[in-house]
């Protein structure tokens, strides 16, 4: 069994390297992707793109050799060294430039995660196994096709599961489906305070007393059909409270009323009813 697994590793490692090279050589966002990687910090921003392309060339060459040669031991040894280099580079990137992107299998900005390191370690193991027990993958597949395909599928699943850049293709749709089936955010009801504050801030009453206000919302309470929102205010140098009355059933800013009450005497120094509906043409939107 171990001979079969070892013989199939050039196919797995070769496919991963060619796929990685495709991103570095053919993707039109390669320049941006290179600048986002830790290469820009390691060797300088000007040399990041040439180094990124060069790495893509090396990956393509090694990947092609692994896929095409019958028992590619030297290529497997070189791939092992390259994978060890990846592991070291990703470890460095994670410590030295945690905000940098992996730049591995996609040009999508993907921080170096623990999964990326495990994937690099898996690549080291796979390439190392191919170097220790070289074999021809077409022969192995022809001899035991069932077991061979099972091994390949398992390894491909492991690579995909360990690739954060591929999450958008399978993990997010699965999570979306689960959310659609279970609807975990259900249950919100009632008129949030923010809706009333937005209504207040759009109102003519607020615009007229705004220069008096000193604080953000200090208190709020509901009473019958009304919600009251209180701010600290100053009126002619005296501490006061500006209280807005917002109807809970009418979302029109024009319905907001306000009073400014002197804190010391309790006397209403200013009160404004809503300004009524604004004059001028009004656009009524009728559902089609």
């Amino acid at each position, binding site marked *: 069994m171990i001979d079969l697994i070892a013989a199939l590793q050039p196919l797995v490692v070769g496919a991963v390297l060619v796929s990685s090279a495709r991103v570095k050589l053919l993707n039109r966002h390669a320049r941006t992707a290179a600048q986002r990687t830790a290469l820009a910090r390691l060797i300088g921003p000007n040399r990041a793109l040439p180094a990124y392309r060069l790495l893509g060339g090396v990956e393509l060459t090694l990947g092609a050799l692994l896929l095409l040669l019958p028992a590619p031991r030297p290529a497997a040894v070189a791939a092992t060294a390259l994978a060890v280099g990846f592991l070291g580079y990703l470890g460095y990137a994670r410590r030295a430039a*945690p*905000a940098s992107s992996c730049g591995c299998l996609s040009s999508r900005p993907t*921080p170096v*995660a623990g999964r990326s390191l495990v994937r690099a370690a898996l690549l080291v193991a796979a390439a190392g196994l191919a170097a220790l027990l070289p074999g021809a993958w077409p022969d192995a597949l022809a001899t035991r096709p069932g077991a061979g395909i099972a091994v390949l599928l398992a390894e491909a699943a492991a690579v995909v599961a360990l690739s954060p850049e591929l999450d*958008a293709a399978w993990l*997010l749709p699965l*999570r*979306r489906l689960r*959310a659609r089936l279970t*609807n*975990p*955010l*259900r*249950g*919100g*009801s*009632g*008129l*949030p*305070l*923010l*809706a009333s504050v*937005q*209504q207040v801030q759009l109102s003519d009453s607020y615009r*007229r007393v*705004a*220069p*008096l206000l*000193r*604080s*953000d*919302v*200090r*208190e*709020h*309470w509901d*009473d019958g059909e*009304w919600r*009251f929102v*209180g*701010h*600290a205010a100053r009126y002619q140098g005296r*501490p006061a*409270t500006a*209280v*807005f*009355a917002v109807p809970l059933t009418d*979302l029109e800013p024009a319905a907001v*009323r*306000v*009073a400014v*009450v002197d*804190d010391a005497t*309790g006397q*209403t*120094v*200013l*009160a*404004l*009813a809503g300004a009524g509906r604004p004059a001028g043409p009004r656009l009524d939107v009728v559902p089609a």
Partner: protein
Amino acid sequence: MPQTLDRRRLLATAALGGVVGATGLGSLAPDAAFAAEAAAIEPGAPDPNFVEGRISKISGHLLLVLGSDTVLHSIRITDGTSIWKLHPTTFDQVAIGDGLYARGVRLPDGTLAADSVWVNIVNLHAHIAAVGRNLLHLDHKGQRIVAHVVQGRSAAVYNGTPAVSDLSLLRVGRHVQVLGAWHPDTNEIDIATVYAAA
């Protein structure tokens, strides 16, 4: 408590009562408002009336706050100070270790007499990585943040329309902006408002 109820009854009656003192609005013209802001800050200079940092000590109504630039500030909470901690709340909810933003007026001794204090407030641009029961897992620049939905407090603003309590239109993978209250020294927040496209 009866005092609070009496006060609220007084304020409610004032707000719903008749129109009083409309002539007093003469001083509220835009010119007067802008004139009051004449003491502007020089460009690039720190705003003397703003403080941010974490509370290191609370004595009476005085907060000692260590700013992120390691400057120590003292902030006085007055009867007129508004305190936000996920929602408008009271001074007894403020704890040592909380982060805050405060705005107010500098007193001659350097203390900031706070008009408004926002405790543990955070403003994040993130992607929704996953949703759970009353929970959003946010991906914020590669870091995972757990955002709790607080029933009766959390609101959503979809496409800039008025806020609603229903967060069920949020979708995994979408970009959101979240205003919330941080749980100090964790990667968790409570959601105040989430802005999203729907």
